[in-house]
């Protein structure tokens, strides 16, 4: 007797698409691209801080991914794998452009937590002004710390996967993300909760 199973989960569908794409099915690769390209573009935009450069880097990321689909061992990690390729593309792009804009932010990290206001529900609304401030605050973080934070709070990667993408220990990932959060909150505190 054949039981009607539950509808395939999103992860099941992605695994199926990945297998079809590896077998050379262009429609499957297209679907994967359409699923993941916006997140990859956003990640690259936040790292490069340049939308046109993010366009180019996103295309390059997927060109590389297309050629290396067979190298992806864990089918459930496609998103993290793509973001890892994107980060490599970003690092190469930064090297080729000779850009190195790391903000020295160590001084900020320790003295923030105690003075942060408590947000109110109204603060949840991200208006255009606040969105601009958020992007600016992200841009002030050191590059690798920014990447780690975004992988967590924007792309929802578990700490272990972030460690893999960044080539860091798990403890370092936790420390860096914690510091990044404190710096971000410090930058945005004045716009939250009607406090100082």
């Amino acid at each position, binding site marked *: 007797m054949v039981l009607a199973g539950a509808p395939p989960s999103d992860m099941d569908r992605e695994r199926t698409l990945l297998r079809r794409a590896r077998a050379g099915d*262009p429609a499957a690769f*297209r679907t994967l*691209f*359409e699923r993941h*390209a*916006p*997140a990859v*573009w*956003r990640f690259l935009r936040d790292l490069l801080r340049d*939308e046109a450069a*993010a*366009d*180019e880097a*996103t*295309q390059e990321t*997927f*060109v590389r991914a*297309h050629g290396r689909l067979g190298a992806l061992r864990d089918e459930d990690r496609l998103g993290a794998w793509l973001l890892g390729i994107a980060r490599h593309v970003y690092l190469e792009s930064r090297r080729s452009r000779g850009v190195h804009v790391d903000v020295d932010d160590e001084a900020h990290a320790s003295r923030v937590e105690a003075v*942060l206001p*408590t*947000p109110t529900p109204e*603060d*949840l*609304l*991200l208006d255009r002004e*606040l*969105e601009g401030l*958020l992007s600016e605050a992200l841009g002030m973080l050191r590059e690798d710390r920014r990447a780690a934070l975004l992988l*967590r*709070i*924007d792309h*929802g990667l*578990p*700490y272990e996967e972030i460690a893999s993408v960044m080539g860091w220990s798990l403890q370092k990932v*936790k420390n860096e*993300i*914690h510091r990044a*959060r404190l710096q*971000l*909150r410090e930058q945005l505190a004045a716009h*939250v909760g009607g406090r100082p």
Partner: protein
Amino acid sequence: MSACRETDLDALLAGELSPEDAARVDAHVDTCPACRHAMTWLRLERGWMAQRARRTPARPALDFAALEARLSRPAARPWVPLRGAWTNWGRMLMAATAAVAFVGLSLTQTQGGVTSLVDEPFGRDARSSLMGEACEDPSREAVAALEASLGACLVASPLISSR
């Protein structure tokens, strides 16, 4: 969970904790003002990032046709095979140049060749003189006679023939 670890609060919001750990962290947050404060910030960040993600603009790079066009290019683009082909062409060109130079020099020498052969150690004249010496050995009259009848020198070494 030990008290007040932000990673635990973060994992709770992300749904990454086991039911037991989630209940424990939740209970701790209820009694800890610092963790409640941290939770409020974590929720705020998640909410902001979600709104920001929904506003990702339509960009040309997000159009699959652009990627398809780029993926169709590499067949004509790879550098390694192309560089190999040009290297071969270069070698062929060098070989052709060497061949033309060789033929050209040979023709030049052939045009002046009637006189230049005299200077060769084994030119026609030298060879005939050597043949003459060998064949004119007086002690070998019988051989000489045979050679004369055959029209050829039967003794190859001038040294032997001179004895």
